[in-house]
């Protein structure tokens, strides 16, 4: 018993050490963002000698943060919303249609997951450019195309747990497919919808490359704005770090409120 207790103590201490190691990059980012420029040079690891908010003020303005935050929200919310609506419909249709064609379509969606983004990036930009679709609507449509595979795959898997007799009963009661899906099936898919939402939100919110190819300066999302901002302040770490901290803070706040859902969602998405 004593041995067991000692082992647990050793494990706990190891864990605490690793936890501190894991958050040290964030610690360095936050503490140095509050320092004066000269303070960073002489005292990088300690707390600020004199706390200053000026870096944050300046970074907030240079990042045009309210605007870029709203741009990120618009793109993410619309893309994820469309992904949930259309992927759940497709996942349902594919699960309920047992024909060969339906199986082939499902396989095509799964196969598309093998194609890395860089393999289609250049022609994608060219085609959408010629169609005058290199803008926010085009970007949202692209996210629908890139995100559909995994989302449909997850919805398709979840459908196996929903009995067909529900469909039959509703049809006998005179509902059509559309009503049946939205009134009965979709509400039952809520847990998987949360997973689909989380997985796509993490990816789309943080995506840099695709928006950098598609969006103009006014529509720039946070990662895009961050790239230009950072380039402008190389070697001016006090400002650069404040900017990075501003971008990280909202994500960490949301994480601490929704961490159970987020970890569960990621786990389900990866394991299936």
């Amino acid at each position, binding site marked *: 018993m004593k041995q067991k207790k000692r082992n647990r103590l050793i494990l706990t201490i190891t864990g605490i050490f690793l*936890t501190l190691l894991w958050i040290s990059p964030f610690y360095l980012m936050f503490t140095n963002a509050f320092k004066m420029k000269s303070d960073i040079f002489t005292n990088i690891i300690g707390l600020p000698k004199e706390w200053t908010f000026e870096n944050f003020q300046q970074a907030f303005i240079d990042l045009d943060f309210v605007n870029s935050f709203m741009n990120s929200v618009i793109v993410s919310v619309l893309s994820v919303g469309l992904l949930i609506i259309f992927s759940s419909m497709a996942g349902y249709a594919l699960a309920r249609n047992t024909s060969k064609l339906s199986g082939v379509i499902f396989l095509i969606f799964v196969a598309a997951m093998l194609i*890395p*983004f860089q*393999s*289609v990036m*250049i022609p994608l930009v060219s085609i959408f450019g010629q169609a005058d679709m290199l803008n926010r609507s085009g970007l949202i*449509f692209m996210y*629908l195309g890139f995100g559909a595979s995994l989302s449909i795959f997850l919805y398709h898997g979840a459908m196996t747990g929903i009995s067909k007799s529900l469909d039959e009963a509703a049809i006998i009661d005179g509902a059509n497919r559309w009503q049946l899906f939205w009134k009965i099936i979709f509400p039952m898919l809520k847990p998987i919808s949360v997973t689909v939402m989380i997985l796509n939100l993490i990816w789309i919110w943080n995506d840099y*490359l695709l928006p950098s190819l598609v969006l103009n300066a006014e529509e720039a999302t946070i990662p895009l704005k961050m790239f230009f901002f950072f380039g402008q302040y190389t070697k001016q770490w006090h400002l650069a770090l404040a900017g990075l901290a501003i971008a990280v803070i909202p994500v960490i706040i949301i994480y601490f409120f929704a961490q159970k859902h987020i970890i569960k969602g990621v*786990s389900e998405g990866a394991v299936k």
Partner: protein
Amino acid sequence: MKNKSLSFWLFMTPTLVALALVVFVPFVYGFIYSFSDWNGLHATEFLGLDHYVNLIQSENFLSAIWFTIKFAVVSIVLVNVIGLGLALLVTQHLKVSNLFRTVFFMPNLIGGLILGFIWQFIFVSAFDSAGRLLGWEFLQGWLADPTTGFWGLVILNAWQYSGYIMIIYIAYLEAVPKELIEAADIDGANPFQRFWKVTFPLVAPAFTISMFLTLSNAFKMYDQNLALTGGGPFKSTEMIAMDIYNTAFSENNMAFAQAKAVVFFILVAAVALTQVYYNKKREVDL
């Protein structure tokens, strides 16, 4: 729902159209134009395999592939060992397990670009001042040469991705029946044997998924590469994804870049399929 039924196609159309226009049309289009002198808008001449022949001789491309493979191999080992270690630690039902898990996973919510910038600060400034303070020379001048650039990327990736892989191992570790472990315990197996002979074979499916994810993540890495080293110094830390991007959008060599992109697809798909095939063969079903 029948094939011919209108509702089936109505339900399928939005995602099918999006997938076709965003993935399949560009994929085929790009494949065809990789055999021509395409400039992003027009092609005037069929060049056959010219780009593919040049590509085998392109030093940039070959060194990018080699760098990516080295990075992928080291990453797979590190990320899986650390990820499994963290998962084992977190599943010991310690009082603070939840906090540990939360912190280890946290980097994965933040974009690779931002993480790369944060670590650039650590490697360039924090390492440097720690090196000066302690008189350790090896901490100085990080990211200024290919070796530290490589290890910088490896450390960043291990720090970020181990927490993600940990989540997958946790899911499988928690599914291992307690009775099996207890039975082994009663039979006199020590903790090491219990893990190696009982838990490990049952967690095998997690290896399939984790190795596949780690590998494809390493192969496709772009944001971290861009933010941490920018491919420098002198393109020495450029990975495949970045090489394709630069060939297309910095050098404006669209058809050649697309040929690289086709080869990149073949690499990624081949590796992924082999991996899944081999791991499926040795999985133990619960």
